[in-house]
């Protein structure tokens, strides 16, 4: 558990980053703007608040992850502080874990702040409509949990990419992974459409290797039909296992890295 001080230090470091606050303010403004848009929605206020709120949290979470996550490791290398850290009785793998958990805590705090704003807006809107505000709360909370898991997965990916590439490249890789992760089923379907066995096997292999981020995306289905705990639990487990896999890979690469 020697990575804990490092995690807390990372939390302190990232929370002081001013860009974080700018992004957070934008996110809160986006969530709150749903109140204005709701009036134009012809009786669909609740839906609009939920969709806009969840999408804003997800998109701004992604921006924070890419901005902060891809810089975490390289900043230490550029500032040469990594020599100072690694000279202490701390393993390289613990350094990676510390960075990951530190940013996870930061993202947790930010997601919590955005979620409080989101629930407040949802509460106000649904009360105004005369609907029971608690109807959508549990389902929205499930979607938010999986959005947070998706952020963690992308954090792990950002750290993984930054162990062997520059911040710009790892930002691009992480963004690419996010986009492709939401298209993994389409890739599989493209393979099927070609009708060629070889391409089908390639797309299937890609489908298994790439993260299936649609499994962590309940935003589109939660409103009408709450998902079962089985689906939610398996999606949660999938996300956590993928994160663990990425962290193990990051630690392996970082162990062999020369500065």
């Amino acid at each position, binding site marked *: 558990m020697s990575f804990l001080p490092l995690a807390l230090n990372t939390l302190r470091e990232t929370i002081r980053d001013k860009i974080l606050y700018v992004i957070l303010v934008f996110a809160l403004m986006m969530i709150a703007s749903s109140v204005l848009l709701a009036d134009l929605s012809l009786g669909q206020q609740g839906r609009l608040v939920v969709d806009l709120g969840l999408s804003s949290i997800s998109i701004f979470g992604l921006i924070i992850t890419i901005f902060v996550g891809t810089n975490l490791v390289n900043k230490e290398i550029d500032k040469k502080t990594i020599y100072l850290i690694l000279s202490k009785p701390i393993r390289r793998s613990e350094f990676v874990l510390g960075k990951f958990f530190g940013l996870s805590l930061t993202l947790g705090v930010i997601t919590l702040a955005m979620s409080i704003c989101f629930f407040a807006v949802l509460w106000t809107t649904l009360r105004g409509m005369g609907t029971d505000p608690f109807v959508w709360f549990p389902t929205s909370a499930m979607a938010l949990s999986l959005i947070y898991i998706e952020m963690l997965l992308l954090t792990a990916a950002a750290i993984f990419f930054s162990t062997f590439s520059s911040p710009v490249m790892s930002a691009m890789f992480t963004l690419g992974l996010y986009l492709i992760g939401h*298209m993994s089923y389409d890739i599989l379907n493209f393979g099927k459409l070609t009708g060629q066995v070889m391409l089908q096997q390639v797309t299937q292999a890609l489908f298994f290797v790439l993260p299936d981020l649609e499994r962590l995306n309940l935003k589109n289905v939660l409103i009408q039909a709450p998902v079962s705990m089985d689906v939610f639990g398996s999606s949660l487990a999938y996300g956590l296992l993928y994160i663990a896999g990425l962290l193990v890979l990051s630690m392996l690469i970082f162990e062999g890295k020369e500065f």
Partner: protein
Amino acid sequence: MLTRLLLALSFVPLAWGIHQSHMEVRSKVDFKANINQEVNIAPPQYLQLLTFGHDAFVADILWLQLIQYYGAAYYQDVPQEHLYRYFDTITTLDPDFEMAYLISGFLMADNKKQVELALKILAKGEKNMPESWQIPHQEGFLYYLQLKDTLKAAQAFERASKKPNAPELPSLLAAQLYRRSNDVERCVLSLRMWDNAYQASPTKELKERAKRHTLETQIACDLLTLRKALSDYANIREQRWQTQLAESKKNKQRPPTNPPSAVPSTLQELVNAGLLRQIPLDPFGRPYIYRQQGLKVLAQPLPWKPVDLKATDFVSTPK
């Protein structure tokens, strides 16, 4: 301090300049341009690829756009050419957007072509949201009010009545329309529905009303059965006459001179001809009135003013 003041003052002409350029741009925009030329929606299957998991959010944006588009086209008094495209895209991105399916039935009810497209959207809704009773209910209204297709409307209302949490209304509408379809089998279906409504009526008043509907439907079914038998009777007589003529020609005999009457003198002849097992009596145990002239069968006056039955068609007027 002076620098700050200068900076603050320089903001004023800058803001004025920006405002002027904005006004210039606005003056060049043709706000009266046909709204249909400004709509450009990517095909839903491609759009779905580009939403990256934010399908419901993009559907909401399109929903807001749709409302603006409808309003603009309404005020410009131009046909709303893109409504189907909007609804199709919205419901492809978010298949659970129930309101989009329902509103399509209202907004696309202008002409037959639009109504058919709206029915396509509603059929998609029925497939995507099999639990919703409102979607087939809306379909029923479109069939009935816009296409005047009583049978399809009744079928849609019947489907709506079978959905979970459906209120009584679609079932009653289906019963009403099935009875109006002038078909014995559907009339029997209607009778069953009215009987269910009667059994389920919670209050005395509603029970009484459902009872009247049930009895009137019973009368309608009996009359339709009798009218069908009368029509079959005429057909059988005609066929028999043709056979007799053919046989006499074949056997080189003199052809029969008088064709058999295609009109029975009493309803009992329908039973004798094997077309009915027995002559039905109305729910009050009274016989139906048969008028040979004009081949009419009517019910005797009811104890109340008929609710469902068209008096001229079904009920004899007291002399």
